[in-house]
């Protein structure tokens, strides 16, 4: 009574080889759960590796092209088919291997360049992304143009072989740590707001670029204000067609949404129930002593499991040619809300311990800071309300208000 079709022999071989390679090459330190943001490797020119293991792991994975397993080999990728990439991800999860590098270049710019970039642009930019050598930031949001992204004002004037860019961006994640920026600029101020925008790339060390961190309620500043004062950008760094940057931006946003939606799936160190058991203690049956908290955690886990399975199904559907690009809004909306819920429950379980803001015991208030940070998940990359609008209009086909 089984419908299981056994794995194709070539995939089975691939799985065995992959597992063997990971066992051989993934350092033990890179198989422990990430406990704080500092454990995560972001790469880039200014990156200081937290350990030799972190460096070795990135180099080995990059050499195989497995930091970006599905990208073509000539651009630094692994050239894997979707099914193989899924196996690689499964095997990495089975061994608790950390991601060798996290990067906006991998998650967002890379896919956009693969779709819209010229061969020369791909050759120039993709391999350093794959190797974790260049750290990218995203120049999208502007003051007064948050959810209404297309009303951006930063302008790029055509000067023949180059543009001169002037303006200001805000909420530029890690702009102070980034090497390059992918940036939306207005190249035709006369056109309607979606049709006068272009997508350009430039080095953050170009004269005229300055950044200033924005302190958040978490006491950290992953975001910056970024200013452009007569910044020279070569024409060869225009991605896609002039004034058609909105297409690139939209495509990239679907990847950003999937990335933010997936936050809850990464970096979760300890099952919530086990954490609660340690903090709250157990009743006579060995259950979390606070029955209401236990019930809330259990219901959260049901939703989280269903969400994780949906991420898996969305990938399988995409592979089967049944995907819908607007589905990224489903994942972004729910993933962000779930991540917020998880951290509320962690704070609830942690009790007064979780309120400790700056002792070594609390790792400088890691729990509380992470909790506060999650509040931005439903704002950044399009608010939850914007995602619901997208679902209502592009999936449910409800009439525009």
């Amino acid at each position, binding site marked *: 009574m089984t*419908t299981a079709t056994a794995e194709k022999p070539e995939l089975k071989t691939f799985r065995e080889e992959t597992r063997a390679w990971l066992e051989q090459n993934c350092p033990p330190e890179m198989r422990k759960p990430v406990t704080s943001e500092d454990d995560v490797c972001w790469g880039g020119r200014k990156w200081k590796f937290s350990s030799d293991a972190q460096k070795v792991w990135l180099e080995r994975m990059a050499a195989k092209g497995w930091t970006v397993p599905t990208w073509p080999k000539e651009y630094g990728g692994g050239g894997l088919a979707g099914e193989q990439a899924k196996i690689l991800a499964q095997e990495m999860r089975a061994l608790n291997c950390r991601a060798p590098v996290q990067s906006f270049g991998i998650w967002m710019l890379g896919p956009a360049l693969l779709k819209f970039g010229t061969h020369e642009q791909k050759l120039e930019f993709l391999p350093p992304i794959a190797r974790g050598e260049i750290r990218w930031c995203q120049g999208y949001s502007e003051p007064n143009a948050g959810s209404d992204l297309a009303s951006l004002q930063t302008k790029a004037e055509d000067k023949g072989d180059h543009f001169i860019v002037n303006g200001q961006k805000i909420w530029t994640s890690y702009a102070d740590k980034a090497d390059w920026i992918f940036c939306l600029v207005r190249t035709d101020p006369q056109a309607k707001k979606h049709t006068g925008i272009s997508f350009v790339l430039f080095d953050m060390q170009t004269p005229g670029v300055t950044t200033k961190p924005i302190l958040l309620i978490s006491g950290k500043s992953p975001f910056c204000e970024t200013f452009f004062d007569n910044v020279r950008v070569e024409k060869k760094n225009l991605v896609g067609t002039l004034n058609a940057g909105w297409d690139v931006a939209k495509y990239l946003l679907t990847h950003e949404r999937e990335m933010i939606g997936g936050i809850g799936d990464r970096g979760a160190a300890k099952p919530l129930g086990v954490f609660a058991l340690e903090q709250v203690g157990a009743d006579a049956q060995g259950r979390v002593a606070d029955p209401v908290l236990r019930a809330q955690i259990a219901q959260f886990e*049901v939703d989280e499991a269903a969400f994780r399975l949906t991420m898996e199904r969305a990938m399988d559907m995409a592979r089967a040619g049944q995907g819908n690009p607007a589905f990224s809004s489903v994942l972004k909306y729910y993933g962000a809300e779930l991540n917020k819920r998880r951290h509320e429950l962690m704070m609830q379980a942690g009790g007064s311990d979780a309120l400790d803001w700056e002792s070594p015991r609390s790792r400088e208030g890691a729990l509380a800071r992470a909790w506060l940070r999650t509040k931005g998940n439903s704002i950044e990359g399009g608010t939850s309300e914007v995602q619901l609008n997208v679902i209502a209009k592009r999936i449910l086909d409800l009439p525009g208000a």
Partner: protein
Amino acid sequence: MALVLTEEQGMLRDSAKSFLADNAPVSELRKLRDTRSADGFNRGLWKQFAEMGFIGVLIPEDLGGMGLGLVEAGVVMEEIGRNLTASPFLASSVVAATALLSAGTAAQKQATLPKIASGELIATLAVDEHSKHNPRNTALKAEKNGSGYTLDGAKTFVLDGHVADLFIVAARTSGAKGDLAGVTLFLVDAKTSGVKVERVVMVDAHNAARITFDKVAVPESAVLGKVGEGLVPLNAALSAGRVAASAEMLGIADEVFTRTVNYLKERQQFAKIIGEFQALQHRAAHLYCEIEFTRSAVLKALQGLDEGTPTAIGLASVAKSKAGATVTLAVQEGVQMHGGIGMTDEFEMGFFMKRARVLQELFGDATYHADLLAQLKKY
């Protein structure tokens, strides 16, 4: 295994979809209710079910079935949910068949499964004794008596009990109420002396029954599986039933949602199509998400049980809990967004709401399964 239906499964879905929509839509359930049908389901339709091969979907080909899996049964269940088709499919073809397949001897299988597959025999599981599902609390006593056993006690919420020919009864052969071990399954012919069946017409116009066992004597050969270890086949049957009920709830949620979104696109109030209102758009979009997550959880659980993956029990609980919560939201939003018309008996929305409530309760509700998941994860 990828979380998408295979081509064959898609074809089965299409044929179940058109067959049920043509032959057993919601109006058929209304007819059964309004004519106070003695059977509570249409025997002619049941025969057609057999001809389509649905009834024996899980039963091996050499025993007269289609030899397919729970994914296929789930595909049929989803369409049953969409149409609120009343039939013993869940009780007999899924739950009872799984119990027999999981623990039956060759003789037991030979005697029952071909008849179940043909629709000639309706079997059902009798497990609950209280208003809330919990198999550990089985108290119905089975005492060794010479070469056989004597059953004493009562069961409730037995699906299609008054039309069933065969009961699979969970009884206690040792230990006390609340113990995990000591439960044994028995095959009891409905005509056995001492078996008293009282039909319950439920809120959703579907069948259940209360059954009393008064010194019911059964032979040794009535034991299904091992004495005292009935939880093994019972869990197999319950898991199949839970996931199949989840698929039915998914079908209901999806159907109600489709009808509601269509209504939002045509109904005018305040000189606007109400679907233009953001308050309704956001609720509809949220519900869409919940239904998508339910679909993933249900498919994964069906596949997990078919493949016998170690996490399948947990996946079944995720599916049942998620589907229960989602279908509840879907029918509530369905009634609310339809406004007054949603409250009328003439309109079909209420039928979905009532069926959803029954399925939510069946084999453990959303909180029961969240609790089960917590127990599995040891917190």
